[in-house]
């Protein structure tokens, strides 16, 4: 991670002209304004502090490089969507890596018991896996509504849909999650 940070720093220092950097103070303002909400959402999606920091960094780097350093029109929408996508990609990668490990290391997924069903970590991980499998339009609504705790109106603005559509998508997503969660047992 540290080496990656160093490499980004070097590339960013030499590749971007000073004029762009001078006009990019809005990145810091965005961090100030939406940083806390983003960290909360990323933490709930990923459940790992180092992953949260990496996803947060990736989000703001993508923002800094957006159309040659130009400020996006709807900055909140941009930042939330990018953070969401970055986090889900990381989550998928993590799941793939975990599935490659032998069953003995992953605590034997097949064995289910009432104690395990109520185990908070097990439930959270199962739900994360299910969320990662959801179609993009449903997943975005679930993460923004249930994990970022935004209103349907705000979600509508971010995703470019109406609040009512967001409501319908969430309902569908919860139905799918419920079916998949019961299959996971």
């Amino acid at each position, binding site marked *: 991670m540290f080496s990656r940070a160093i490499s980004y720093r070097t590339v960013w220092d030499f590749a*971007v002209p000073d004029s762009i950097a001078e006009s990019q*103070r809005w990145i*810091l303002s965005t*961090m100030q304004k939406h940083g806390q909400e983003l960290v909360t959402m990323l*933490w709930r999606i990923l459940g790992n502090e180092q992953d949260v920091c990496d996803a947060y960094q990736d989000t*703001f780097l993508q923002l800094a490089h957006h159309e040659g350093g130009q400020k996006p029109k709807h900055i909140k929408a941009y930042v939330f969507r990018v953070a969401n996508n970055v986090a889900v990609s990381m989550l998928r990668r993590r799941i793939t890596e975990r599935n490659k490990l032998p069953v003995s290391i992953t605590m034997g997924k097949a064995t289910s018991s009432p104690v395990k069903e109520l185990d908070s970590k097990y439930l959270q991980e*199962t739900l994360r896996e299910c969320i990662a499998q959801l179609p993009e339009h449903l997943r975005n609504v679930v993460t923004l509504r249930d994990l970022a705790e935004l209103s349907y109106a705000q979600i509508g603005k971010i995703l470019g849909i109406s609040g009512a559509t967001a409501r319908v998508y969430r309902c569908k997503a919860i139905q799918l*999650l419920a079916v998949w969660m019961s299959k996971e047992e």
Partner: protein
Amino acid sequence: MKMTEIKTKNKCKRIRGWLYKAISRSFGSEANWLNEHIRRCPRCQQRLISYGKVNLALSFMKNQPHGLDLLMRANTQTIAVLKHSLRTEPEARELEKKLPEPKTFERYCKYGHSLANLAACIVILLLMKIGVFSSMDQFHNQGQRVMKQYYTRQVGEDLADDVFPNNSKPPSSARSRGLSKA
């Protein structure tokens, strides 16, 4: 034209509220027929359990605490890869030390009880004040009336009116007695 539009909109809004209430009464999770059905149908029971499980997992995810310095660390890591001129901005320094702040509602939530107590105290004080002043007023008026009555009896109504010019008149019985004496 605009007024009628507003009226129609308000009516629509009211009806929408009633509709929502009626629908949730008949079809909501509290509806009797629904509970009765779930008690008998194993498939619906299974569905309800799975919904409950999703909700439980979501609430676990929401309530999982993270380190207090997570925002600070995330900001520091991100600022470290930004352009040098941005890294040296005073705003960047602030972000590197930033701790999570509670939401406005949460911030004022803890004062809820104190505010309610304060409001109750103010109301009690107001009521007391109104009560005390009104009874003091009553005492004052009655006292003056008695005095005026006395003066009316002793020295006559004209002089009594001079002594108590702005007061209410004494009871008619006393006045008549005073007048007869005079």
